[in-house]
């Protein structure tokens, strides 16, 4: 133990500081490489065109459109359910009640299940059970709903992003001052009226944040849609709930692993990745901003 303590102290600071800096550098390097590789290819034609010549040329509009459709349907299904759950957890049941704890446990578990298992669930439940069942009843067994499509993919994704919505909305509801609720109740409003006219309007920012974070997560996840609706290539845009769709993340996966010419399509891959990164970052930053806004209100 001849090493002077001063040097050990510096070593500790260096190692811990180095880890922090390495993390920051890693993030910047990944982003930098993607931006550098994709920026040049990011043209109007690329964003608004369709893949051509066996996906070696052309744009990615169908994938952007598919992603948009996916997250829209997903939000329509997931955000109301998440919001209602958050309201129930905060306004109707206490922290320690059995129902509240059971639901919280379920939400935590849901957040921890791997995305690919959601995909399996989508296949087993939505496609085979619900879809297959509907086909048997409505179409006499003809394949209509019992196959991968955008509705099942969206519902699977809604389930995956449900915890994100619930956590965000809860955070917002908690910042609504107790006095406002009590004032409303004292004026003779019922609990439901208080929620509808006082709590919900005050929590709009949080609901929006939750929706944005869920969309960001949903746009980035590929595993749940691998076999619940995403398609390699489609000549037409989806025009119904039973259609399959192209998606940005899935497009990146396909182009970089199973393309006919992986090297030649490198610019397309990078540019697609860049589009997905820009999309998720924009969403994340708006969520960060909104949350910051919300915290400011909580402090006032």
């Amino acid at each position: 133990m001849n090493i002077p303590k001063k040097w050990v102290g510096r070593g500790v600071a260096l190692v811990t500081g180095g880890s922090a800096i390495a993390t920051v550098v890693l993030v910047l390097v990944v982003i930098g490489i993607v931006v550098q590789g994709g920026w040049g290819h990011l043209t109007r034609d690329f964003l608004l065109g369709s893949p051509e010549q066996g996906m070696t040329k052309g744009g990615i509009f169908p994938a952007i459109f598919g992603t948009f459709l996916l997250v829209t349907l997903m939000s329509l299904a997931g955000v109301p359910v998440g919001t209602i759950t958050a309201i129930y957890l905060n306004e109707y049941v206490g922290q320690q009640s059995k129902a509240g704890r059971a639901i919280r446990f379920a939400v935590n578990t849901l957040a921890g299940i791997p995305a690919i298992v959601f995909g399996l669930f989508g296949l087993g439940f939505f496609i085979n059970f619900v879809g297959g069942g509907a086909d048997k009843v409505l179409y006499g067994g003809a394949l209509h709903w019992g196959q991968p499509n955008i509705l099942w993919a969206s519902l699977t994704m809604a389930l995956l992003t449900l915890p994100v919505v619930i956590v965000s909305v809860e955070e917002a509801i908690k910042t609504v001052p107790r006095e406002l609720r009590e004032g409303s109740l004292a004026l003779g409003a019922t609990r439901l009226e208080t929620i509808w006219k006082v709590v919900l309007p005050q929590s709009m920012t949080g609901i929006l944040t939750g929706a944005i974070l869920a969309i960001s997560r949903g746009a980035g996840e590929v595993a749940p849609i691998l076999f619940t609706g995403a398609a390699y290539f489609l000549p037409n845009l989806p025009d119904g709930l039973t259609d399959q769709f192209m998606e940005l993340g899935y497009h990146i996966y396909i182009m970089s692993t199973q393309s006919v010419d992986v090297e030649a399509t490198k610019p397309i891959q990078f540019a697609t990745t860049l589009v997905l990164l820009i999309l998720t970052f924009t969403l994340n930053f708006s969520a960060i901003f909104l949350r910051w806004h919300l915290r400011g209100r909580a402090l006032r």
Partner: protein
Amino acid sequence: MKRRIRIGEFLIEKGIATVAFASLGAIVLIFLFVFREAMPIFAMAPESLSGGHESISATGAATVGVSASYGDPVGEAESYGDPVGEPETYGDPPADTSRSGSPAAIDPAAPTTPPTPSTTGEPAGSVLSQILSGNWQPVGDHPKFGILPLVAGSIKVALIAILIAAPVGVFAALFTSTFAPRWAKEAMKPIIEIMAGIPSVVIGFFALTILASLVQTVFGLDYRLNALVGGIAMSMAVIPLIYTLSEDSLSAVPKHFTEGSLALGAPLWETNLRVVLPAAIPGIFAGVLLGLGRAIGETMIVLMATGNAALLSPSLVEPVRTVSASIGAEMAEVVFGDPHYVMLFVLGSLLFCISFALNAVAEIFIRQRLMAKFGGAS
């Protein structure tokens, strides 16, 4: 008038309660349906798993196409077929029940790679010994569904990821919450959020195109895509999780711990390392466990960066195929109700159980930390 509103409200409130239980219902449904599809495994005759089953699909070749272009060594599986080196795999749920079957039962299923008719005639033993064999060759005339190589692959990648992510995440959190000035901590937050927001498919793409070549050059490896590349890439997905939970935990350590230690004359680094860090260990451990769960369950990164060859070998620089990647790559090709389909759901159930168990344990640690915090405050 007033009463009618009340009845309406009563119904709406019941509706709210019903919807709120949707997530609970979802968990039950996920459990039921993933396991339901995996159930036939117990009713299945061993022969249907070991061979004699008709070829699953012509497109099955596309499944391994990912790795094929990088020199897929699937055909050499038997030369690495040493199932003894992976004792951890026995800890997994399905394996527990079969402990009675000695490890020797694993060997018979890994004889020859081009499956010969003799495989069919061989006494197959129980379904479980088939599952625990060392060959995963789901496509072909005589498919084999030994999950050991996949489990070993998942463990390899997850361990590499944790070995990188845990020190980096914890040290970075220790730095920002103790040594660094306040602005550094505030500046780190958005960076970590950005990192957590990078979609896994983007990390996979980065690993596939940039990291793989870099690692190959630096270490002089034979295979471009391997467990090491997958593990390094995976650590990028796990660092934000470990950092966030460690940071929370470190920040929750009461200030008077630090002040007391400093007042006793301990230097800052010793205070941080020997007082603050130990006090935050439960939360940090929870973070590492959740990170492990994430690393085992994550699909896209391993699907793109590990080479996807179901090898059973102790080497960390050979291609591996993980449990999650197998589901992701093969599920789109299988026929509904087929043994292969059932096996993939068995793998899914395995992932579900592992992540469920890790989450439950992590939850206990987090709660313990909270108790300690409130106990300390009072």
